[in-house]
């Protein structure tokens, strides 16, 4: 039936003279292509939907982010007050802000799930190494979005979390202190820091993110979606409408979840930052950094003469690097072998992240 349809449409096109619009926007070929496009469908395919979820949430972020910029003022004197204003006085301001915060967190969660599903399915294997690389970098960028956005309301919690976070840059050898100064724009978190973080959050990161996103999507389009290893005959479904419909159901559900969370558990504004006040108890960064902050709590001050904190950060960084480079060392996957080393490494990573994150919430000390 589908075949019949396409024949009909192509014959209709050749028969009629091109309309004003189609002659100026020659989309016919694209539509033609889309109507033929198929995507593989297998047991693991549902996991791929998380990539689409992250894409949707990114779009929500862009839209709500731009809206918040209508009222937000990036100065130490007015940042908190403008967020209060958005929450208290602007119609639906509380909702927009809440959606922006929830969507950010859900997006990072979706990215993590997406990444681990790709990892365990070995979908990164040749020739799709660069899709993995761009995807991983998108996660890093998303976390940087989170880090820079956390400071902007200039609340007590965000102030101290940012202080601790930026202090970690001094562990970078040689240029660490310079990096910290560059990031803060001053000796301490102050006016210049807010404008810098604001610039990073709304002007620097978005275009970079979009570039990587385009690269990611174009590569997926060019190379096609990965199919599970060892499947001899693969089943595929049409991209339109079948896959789009599936994705739409998920998107509607995610939008619904986002709305429910934003309305039912709206984000509070919190207390205004007071740089002179002592750090309050229970400060922690956003949840996706808690694995890092929690780990550092368990490392002794010095290990074998090396500063414990530095050692911890380097070790975690090394682990992340090994994880990042998996397409280049997992040669087994290219030969269609699910090697236990890779699986164990992934499982350990998941266990580590989940344990540390839950510890940060349930047993922080």
């Amino acid at each position, binding site marked *: 039936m589908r075949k019949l349809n396409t024949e009909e449409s192509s014959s209709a096109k050749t028969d009629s003279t091109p309309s004003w619009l189609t002659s100026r926007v020659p989309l016919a070929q694209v539509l033609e292509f889309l109507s033929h496009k198929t995507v593989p469908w297998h047991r693991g395919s549902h996991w791929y939907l998380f990539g689409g979820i992250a894409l949707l949430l990114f779009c929500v972020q862009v839209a709500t982010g731009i809206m918040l910029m209508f009222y937000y003022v990036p100065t130490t004197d007015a940042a908190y007050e403008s967020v209060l204003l958005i*929450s208290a006085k602007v119609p639906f301001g509380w909702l927009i802000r809440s959606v922006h915060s929830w969507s950010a967190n859900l997006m990072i969660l979706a990215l993590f799930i997406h990444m681990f599903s790709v990892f365990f399915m070995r979908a990164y294997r040749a020739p799709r190494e660069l899709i993995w690389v761009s995807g991983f970098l998108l996660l890093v960028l998303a976390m940087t979005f989170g880090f820079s956005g956390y400071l902007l309301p200039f609340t007590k919690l965000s102030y101290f979390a940012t202080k601790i976070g930026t202090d970690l840059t001094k562990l970078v050898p040689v240029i660490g202190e310079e990096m910290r100064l560059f990031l803060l724009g001053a000796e301490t978190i102050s006016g210049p820091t807010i404008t810098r973080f604001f610039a990073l959050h709304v002007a620097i990161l978005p275009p970079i993110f979009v570039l990587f996103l385009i690269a990611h999507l174009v590569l997926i389009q060019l190379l096609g979606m990965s199919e599970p290893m060892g499947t001899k005959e693969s089943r595929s479904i049409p991209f339109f*409408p*079948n896959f789009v419909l599936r994705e739409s159901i998920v998107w*509607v559900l995610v939008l619904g*979840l986002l709305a429910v969370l934003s309305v039912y558990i709206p984000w509070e504004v*919190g207390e205004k930052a007071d740089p002179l006040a002592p750090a309050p108890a229970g400060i922690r960064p956003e949840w996706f950094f808690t694995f890092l902050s929690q780990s550092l709590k368990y490392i002794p001050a010095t290990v074998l003469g090396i500063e414990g904190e530095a050692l911890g950060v380097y070790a975690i960084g090394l682990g992340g690097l090994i994880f990042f480079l998996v397409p280049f060392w997992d040669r087994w996957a290219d030969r269609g072998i699910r090697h236990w080393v890779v699986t164990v490494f992934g499982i350990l990573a998941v266990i580590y992240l989940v344990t540390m994150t839950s510890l940060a919430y349930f047993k922080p000390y």
Partner: protein
Amino acid sequence: MRRIAWISIKSFGLAAIVLAMGAGLAAAQTPAKPAGKSQNACINCHQNLPGKLGDPVKKFKKDVHAQKGITCVGCHGGDQTSSNFAVIKSKENGFIGRPKVTDIPELCSKCHSHLEYMRKFSPSIDVGQLSSYKTSVHGKLLAKGDTKVATCASCHGSHGILPASNAASSVYPPNVSETCSKCHSDTNYMKGYKIPTSQHNDYLQSIHAELLMVKRDLSAPTCNDCHGNHGAFPPTVNSVSGMCGQCHVNNRNLFDKSPHKKAFGALRLPECAVCHSNHKVLRASDKMVGDTPPSVCVSCHAKGSKQLQTAANIRAQLEGLKNVIGQANNKLESAEHLGMEVSEAKFNMKEARSALIKVRTEIHTFSFPDVKKKTEEGKKVAEGALQAALAAIQEFHGRRRWVIFPIVLTIFLAGALYLKLREIEGNDRNRG
């Protein structure tokens, strides 16, 4: 004894004169040096003398009198222009040397009581110090020949006199209590006067001292603000509220209309100081009123008396208002942190806090209905703010009811899309 000292000065002075003449010659050869200086024979000699004889020269350089062009002879007499030692210190030239203690007030008043003269320095200057001094306890005792009492120099110094506005001056307000205490805290010195010596110690613990000495609020009182500076006197029991009322006007006015005014007068009790003490005026606290210690009421009124009941009622009003204000502040803060609009209510809280301050003043009526009236005003405002805060918090949680909307819409759309998918894929399967 005096003679011996005089001779030693004389012999030493001769050598000094020789030296000074040499210096004078040298000075004459260098025209840049101001002529007046080399002509001051007193300084020429004394600046080279050790200890007590040389010190006045050093100290006098900073003295306000030196700044205004008054020299040694202004007080000590003599002729500073002469180079002849006998002429310089001759009685004919009015040389008096070290003035007698009993002469000091008159000596200073030669200029300081002279309006035409003093006007040159400041048109609004006070010239009544001497007549004030004569009315003071110090002045009266001095007139009787008691030289232990304070004269001008005791407080102002002699050769390094600085104006009271100078922070280094012994009469700069934050330094005054220290200056008075030099004598008044010395139990040996004060023996025979039958007055306590604990005033300075007490004062240092007072709210007044904290404001003046720690916070450097020069409007806060020190010794002379209640006792007078030149006309120093102990306030009489029924003039106390007048002293305190200079600054605490409202409290004074309310007290004067209260039943305590008459009662304290009859009992010869020192008004404000009965409850607040005289020198050790501690920061007033709400605990001072009530029917149990540390309330000050219990020190006079009997347990179970009607008056103590009133005190307890007043305290209850005060605590009630504080309680409502505390609650309102708390809830307003919570509401604000939730991101709710409560700025109007927060703004109104200023009025409630003002009311609390007014209630504390109103206590000095010692009348329960008056206090209650003021308290009600504050309570009304604070309760309004509290209600606004609670309403805002309720509204925050009330938004949750809207959650039904996305739930229904999501279920509907997802369900419909699922049916659509089923239909399409069912058709495909049928055909395939």
